């Protein structure tokens, strides 16, 4: 089981709307996320992609099923166990989730100051080194509001990388970025993964671009799940809902081999 980082077993998650109606976002969903690889979780808006990440992190609780991390059941974990679990993850939030009243330096230094006993001089050295690697040198005294969207994402990444996470979760990392910035961010993900060697889980609707990074693709669609061993497999799928998904997200050209037959 060592090559499986995260496993969902028949996970159910239901929300109750303001008018009392129940909406099942994940309906007995099962899939695995392999260790050391990049898995993309794709799907349209409101299909439960971000919910899946929040379930893994214990920010939400499942209504049914189990979630395993490295083969260990973490579904009902709490207290110190949950803290220990979260310490293994790095998370890049959709909006960056930077502390807006702190400078870039203090944001990136926070996990080291709060989670480790690293001396301040060493923290300074490590933070400046990471900021340099992410091309953020010279911006350490700025506040998040003074940075562009792409820079904020990079600061978020720098902060998430400080404690050498085993698994990095990216929640819609390119939302609100222009195509060039999006490409740069994806390049950055590839480089940092090669450097640190973490398992990468990217939740995104940025199809097809994000598929260039993917070793493994999971498509969430109306509460159900389709798993593909490689991005190419998606194009060859004959399942109606996947063909529809490919058509709407990638365009007709990706399906030409099917229409020719």
């Amino acid at each position, binding site marked *: 089981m060592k090559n499986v980082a995260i496993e969902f077993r028949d996970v159910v998650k239901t929300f109750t709307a303001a*008018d*009392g109606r129940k909406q099942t976002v994940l309906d007995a969903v099962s899939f695995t996320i392999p260790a050391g690889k990049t898995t993309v979780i794709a799907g349209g808006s409101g299909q439960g992609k971000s919910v899946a990440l*929040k379930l893994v*992190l*214990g*920010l939400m609780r499942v209504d049914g099923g189990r979630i395993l991390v490295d083969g260990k059941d973490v579904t009902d974990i709490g207290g110190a166990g949950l*803290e*220990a679990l*979260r*310490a293994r*993850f790095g*998370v890049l*939030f*959709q*909006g960056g*989730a*930077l*502390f*807006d009243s702190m400078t870039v330096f203090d944001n990136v230094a*926070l*996990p080291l100051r*709060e*989670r480790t006993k690293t001396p301040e001089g060493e923290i300074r050295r490590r933070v400046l080194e990471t900021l340099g690697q992410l091309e953020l040198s010279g911006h350490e005294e700025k506040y998040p509001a003074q940075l562009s969207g792409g820079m904020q994402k990079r600061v978020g990444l720098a*902060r998430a990388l400080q*404690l050498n996470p085993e698994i990095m979760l990216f929640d819609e990392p390119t939302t609100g970025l222009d195509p060039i910035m999006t490409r740069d961010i994806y390049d950055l993900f590839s480089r940092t993964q090669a450097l640190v060697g973490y398992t990468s889980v990217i939740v995104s609707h940025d199809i097809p671009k994000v598929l260039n990074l993917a070793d493994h693709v999971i498509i969430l669609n109306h509460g159900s799940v389709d798993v593909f061993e490689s991005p190419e497999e998606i194009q060859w799928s004959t399942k109606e809902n996947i063909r529809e998904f490919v058509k709407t997200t990638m365009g007709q050209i990706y399906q030409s081999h099917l229409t020719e037959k």
Partner: protein
Amino acid sequence: MQQNPIGKLGSTGLYILGDLGRMGLFCMRALRGAFRRPFRFMELVRQIHFIGAGSTAVIFFTALSTGMVLGLQGYYSLKQFGAEGMLGSAVSLTIIMELGPVLTALMVAGRAGSAMCAELGIMRISEQIDALDCMAVDPFRYMISPKFLATLIVVPLLTSIFDLVGIAGGYIVGVNMKGVNPGIFIDGMHTSITNHDLRLGFIKSVVFALLVVWICTGRGYFVREIRGAGFGSESVSRVTTQAVVLSSISVLIFDYLLTAVLL
């Protein structure tokens, strides 16, 4: 289903129970967080400065005006019975047992409580609290417990400033403006105020401090869970208003309860 009045009553009852449970656990975690290492001493000092030093001016003026009005009103009321000599006792007892703790708590709720609620609410909706959780940094130890501790330290101190300034205000009006004998004013205070009165004022200020910081930080922390709050920045503004109103009403209710039980 929502139109059914019994169903509505039931769901409101469940919501209130859930909310009370949530807030109860929140208070316990915040108090426990104060004893978890590493302590954030500088954050505590920063909060004491924000809640305490920042509120001194507003407390000073409220106390002075309250004391002076009380001196004036008391003087005319007591004069009708020829009892102006009781002014010192009347002013000081009213301020120490009632107005000092209550008005200080209301001022702190309006000034610092609203700010704490809005800060936590914005941190919640912009996922900053989730980010702390994900970094395995306990948000209670990191930022909520220091607010609790600071308020519990600062409000009794602010209350004592209020008492002092308020009594001085009554003295200025009574003695300097209305000609009450200063010796009688001071002596009236000495003979009527007991340790029990001072203790009651102190207990009230600590309980009110806990109510204000608990409700204000709790509402901000649970901004997403509050029914009818809406979404985004609007939810933060609504919840902040609700927090100040709720904490003020709680202070007034507990004022009566504590007086009834402890007097």
